[in-house]
Every structure is written in structure tokens, then in C-alpha cells.
């Protein structure tokens, strides 16, 4: 009975159309503009009558294109390198966060142990810490404390093979950014996965244990396959944060480890904005999340509701 399709009045559909237009409009606008020349954007012809050009994308991707670009003398935007940095950082931190996070969530749900309540409460509390608050200490620690002495064994080896001066510090490396992203996302992932692990029937685990499986086998062979939807949701959210984050990456990265958001902000802050190119880079940054949204929207919504409704 509930599945019956009711006839709605036309105003209702008009409202939906307006809402869809409002939420997708700005994205479409950016998409369209990224194919326009700056002249066309500034002349203010909002219409769809223009000659689409991929020149902006060529300018943005100039360091990875295999052919010479005619309209460009010098490749100023190193988008390709930044894109690879972003990809490495986002993927590695997502994988690490998921593995570490689901183990912790499993321990919190299935075992009663000393300090469990403390851990659970701490996890909840650190979830509210804004990245801006972490900026100062992370900058100080990653530059001054989390270092290997250049005269030490490992530090000396790294300096010999990679070159450079001073002590070997976390700041400016991929691993430095990955470490803070993993830490930042862990509370959230633990929170989401807890609500999925609770639903795994205990009897399944006990059956596996009777058959002689150790705790780690039970976890990896029985529990993990059952919480795949939760893992997918958590993965998308973690990837989204690691992929989109700007502030901490900008404090920790150097010239070689810049990520795409930093590249965009650096090119925006100048007075004369090249709208076409900057929108092309923005579009390239937005493509992976858009693809996730279109193909995994069900997992995203499950994850969101699991985090708030059941939590």
C-alpha cells in the first residue's frame, strides 16, 4: 500500500525542478565555463552560444601533456604533479584509516576491556576538533620534533640517498600529511563502523571460533566481508576529506608535495584571476568526488544516516 504512486500536483514538480536547478546549477556553470575562453567569460554572455575549447584544460595539464601547446610559452601550473600528490596522499591515508579504524571499532563493539569507555569518549571528543586548531601544533611538531637526527643511522641514510640539508623531518613529506589525515579521520571512521559492526550477528563469529579460527581470522574472514557497505561509506568519506583538505596540507607541504587544493588557492589569490583555467583545475579536482557521488550515492547516504541516526 505504501508503494502506491500518488499523483502530485504540478507545483510540487516545479518545486523539485527549482531545487535540482539550485543544487546542480553552480556545478554545471563551472563545467560550462571551464570550456570557455576568458574573453567569453568576461564579456558576460551567459548563453550557451560559444565555441567550446579545451585550451583551459591544456593550460592546466601542461606538465603532463605529451604534445606541445601552441598558446602557451611557459608551463606555470604544474597540475599533473599536484594531482599525483593528491592521489597518493588520499589513497594511502584512506586505506590506512580504514584498516586501523575498523580494527578499533571492532574492539570497541565486541570486547569489554579496561579503558574502553575512556577510549570511546576520547574518540567522540576529538571528533569536534577543527583542523584550524591542529594547525599550530602540527606545524611546530612536524617541523621540529618529529625528526630523525641527520647524524643518526636512518636519518643519515635518508640524507645520503635523497640529498637535502638539516634533520629529516615529517614536514614536507607525503607521510607527514598522511599521518595527520589518518589521525583526523580515525574518530569519524570508528564512529561510523561501530554502528555497522553491531549488526553482525555474534553467532557467526562464535561458529567460526568453534571451528578453530583465531581472533584475527574471525575479524578478517568473517566480520570484514559482512560490513562491506559500511567500509564503502567510510572509505568515500575519508577519501573526500583527504582529497579536499587544504589548510593542514598547505602548512605541511613543500614545493614537491603540493596537493591540488593548494594549487587552486595559490592561483586564486592573485588579483587578476584567470577564470577559465582556474575553473578547469577546479573541475578536475571535483571529478573524482562527483564520480563517487553518481555511482555510490546509496553507500554515501547509508553512511551519513548511520553516523547520525543510529549513532
Amino acid at each position: 500500500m505504501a508503494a502506491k504512486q500518488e499523483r502530485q500536483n504540478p507545483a510540487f514538480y516545479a518545486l523539485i525542478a527549482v531545487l535540482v536547478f539550485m543544487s546542480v546549477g553552480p556545478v554545471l556553470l563551472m563545467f560550462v565555463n571551464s570550456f570557455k575562453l576568458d574573453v567569453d567569460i568576461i564579456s558576460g554572455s551567459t548563453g550557451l552560444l560559444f565555441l567550446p575549447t579545451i585550451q583551459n584544460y591544456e593550460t592546466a595539464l601542461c606538465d603532463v601533456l605529451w604534445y606541445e601547446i601552441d598558446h602557451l610559452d611557459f608551463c606555470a601550473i604544474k597540475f599533473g604533479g599536484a594531482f599525483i600528490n593528491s592521489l597518493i596522499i588520499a589513497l594511502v591515508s584512506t586505506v590506512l584509516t580504514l584498516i586501523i579504524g575498523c580494527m578499533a571499532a571492532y574492539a570497541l563493539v565486541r570486547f569489554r576491556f579496561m579503558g574502553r569507555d575512556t577510549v570511546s569518549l576520547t574518540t567522540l571528543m576529538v571528533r569536534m576538533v577543527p583542523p584550524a586548531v591542529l594547525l599550530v601544533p602540527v606545524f611546530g611538531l612536524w617541523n621540529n620534533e618529529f625528526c630523525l637526527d641527520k647524524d643518526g643511522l636512518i636519518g643519515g641514510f635518508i640524507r645520503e640517498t635523497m640529498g637535502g640539508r638539516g634533520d629529516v623531518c615529517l614536514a614536507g613529506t607525503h607521510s607527514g600529511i598522511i599521518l595527520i589525515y589518518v589521525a583526523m579521520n580515525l574518530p569519524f571512521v570508528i564512529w561510523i563502523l561501530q554502528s555497522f559492526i553491531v549488526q553482525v550477528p555474534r553467532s557467526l563469529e562464535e561458529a567460526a571460533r568453534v571451528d578453530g579460527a583465531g581472533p584475527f581470522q574471525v575479524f578478517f574472514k568473517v566480520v570484514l566481508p559482512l560490513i562491506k557497505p559500511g567500509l564503502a561509506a567510510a572509505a568515500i568519506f575519508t577519501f573526500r576529506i583527504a582529497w579536499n583538505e587544504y589548510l593542514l596540507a598547505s602548512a605541511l607541504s613543500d614545493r614537491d608535495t603540493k596537493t591540488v587544493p593548494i594549487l587552486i588557492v595559490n592561483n586564486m589569490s592573485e588579483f587578476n584571476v584567470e577564470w577559465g583555467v582556474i575553473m578547469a583545475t577546479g573541475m578536475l579536482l571535483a571529478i573524482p568526488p562527483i564520480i563517487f557521488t553518481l555511482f555510490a550515492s546509496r553507500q554515501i547516504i547509508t553512511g551519513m544516516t548511520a553516523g547520525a541516526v543510529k549513532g
Partner: protein
Amino acid sequence: MRIARANRLTPYMFMAPAAIIMAIALLYPLGYMVWGSFRAWNPSQSIGEAEFVGLRNYIFLWNDPNFHESLIVTLKFAFFVVSLELLIGVGLALLLDRNIRGMSVLRTLFILPMMIAPVVVGLMWRYMYHPTVGTFNTTLESWGLPKVDWLGDHALMSIIIADIWQWTPFIFILSLAALQSLPRSALEAAKIDGATGWQQIIHIKLPLMMPVLIVTCLLRLIDAFKVLEVILVMTAGGPGLSTEILALRISRTATEFRELGVAAAMSNYLLILLLFFTVAMFLFTKWQEARARRLAAAIQEDD
């Protein structure tokens, strides 16, 4: 015997990686920040070299009119963003809670803004707000209306609108999920008793959705204090200090003014503020639960 001890160690083994990482990269930095906030510290020094100045950074901020300004901007931003998003999001959820074809497509389109990088959202809106070439002003002009100085005189309103665009869907989706999991029996009973649409909403749907709404509200409130990139790209805190929210001011104090001690003290003020809101919200939920339980008990006694 060995097995028993291994079993007792199991939870710690599962917990250890997460605990170690969070201790190294979250808790230790937070402690480090508290320690640093008592020092006159600039980025070229290590914390040990920085001079200990006691509470000077905190007192300086307490009397700093710029800090007050940015605190007020932050609170205004958080208040308007959360209340407007809650209003619009819940309203839309109540309106669209029907069986229509293509609801899943609709939800997919609605979550799109949330998934896009804040930097890119800022970029899109900065273009649309542009005084001469931007979408809004060209549209207004073509209708013969006066132009609006979006990112000048009305900068705070403009960033609030951008945030509402990005995050209302979050509240919409959560309230829709809550609405669709409401017990049908209560609604049917109300319909049979002849409750009008508004009465159903106010007396049945909203009270039953309350727990979800409070959690959602809390999540949004915490997130509203995290917003930084969108504003950085759109206005960089300007004009003047009119959109410089605390997160932005912290990052500018640390990177532009190179006063890590002051920035750390400011971060601590922000944390205290957030803690206050979280605890207040938590107590409010507890109080509501207690009241609901008392009411339920009273009804049972009447029976």
C-alpha cells in the same frame, strides 16, 4: 593458560594502532598547543627556545577588539547557518516525504554539493558573486534591477548563502531518513482522529524526529566552526574583518603575523567554546530524555 592471556590481550591488539596514531598525531599535538599557548613563540623557534610568558597571550586576546570582532562573526555565522539550514532542510524533508518516482536520483543530485571540495565551492561562488562578470549581477542587470555588492557590503550574508547551498542537503537527507523510519501507526492513528497536516507535523512528526534533529544540529554546529576554505577563497576574511571567522584568524595569526603563541591561545579559546556547546547540547538531550521518561511514567500511572 597461554590462550587465556592471549584472549585478554586481543582487544588491546585491535585497539593499539588507532590508539597510538591518535595519541601521536592528535592528543600530543593538542597538549603541545596548550603548552605553546603560554609562550611568545614564532615559527623559526622550536618550542623550547620560546620565552615563557604565562597568561599574556590569553589576556592579550581577551582585550583584543579584532579577536572580539572575529568571535562575533563566528557566532553569527554558526547561528545563521545552522538555524537556516535546519529550517530549510527539515521543511523540504516534510514537503518531499512522499512516494514519488526518481527519489533516489533526486537524493544523488542533492548530495553533490557536499562532496565537492570546499576550495572549489568557494571558487564557484566567488565567480557567481563577481561584481561585474558574476552570474547574479549579470542576471540582476538583465532584469533591470540594481547590482548588489555581494562580497563587499553583504559579504557575511553571501558566505552564509554559500554554506547553506552546500550543507542544507545534509540536514535534508538525515531528516528524510528520520521521517521515513517513523512508526506508521502513530501517523495513521492521528489521521483517523482527524488531525490536519499541520497538526500531524507539529504534534507527531517533529517530536518523534527530535533525537535525530538534535544530533544533526550538533554535527552541523561543530562543522560550522570548521569552515575555512570556502571563506578563504571567497573573501579571505575581508572586507575589513567582516567575514574573518576564528578558524581563519587562527591560520592568519600563525602564517601571516607569525605569532604561534597567540594562535595557540586562540585555538584554545575556540576549543573551549566548542566544548561548551557540545556539553550544553548533551545536557539538553539528557534533560529532554528525562522529561520524556517522566511523561511516559505519568501516562502509565493514569492508566
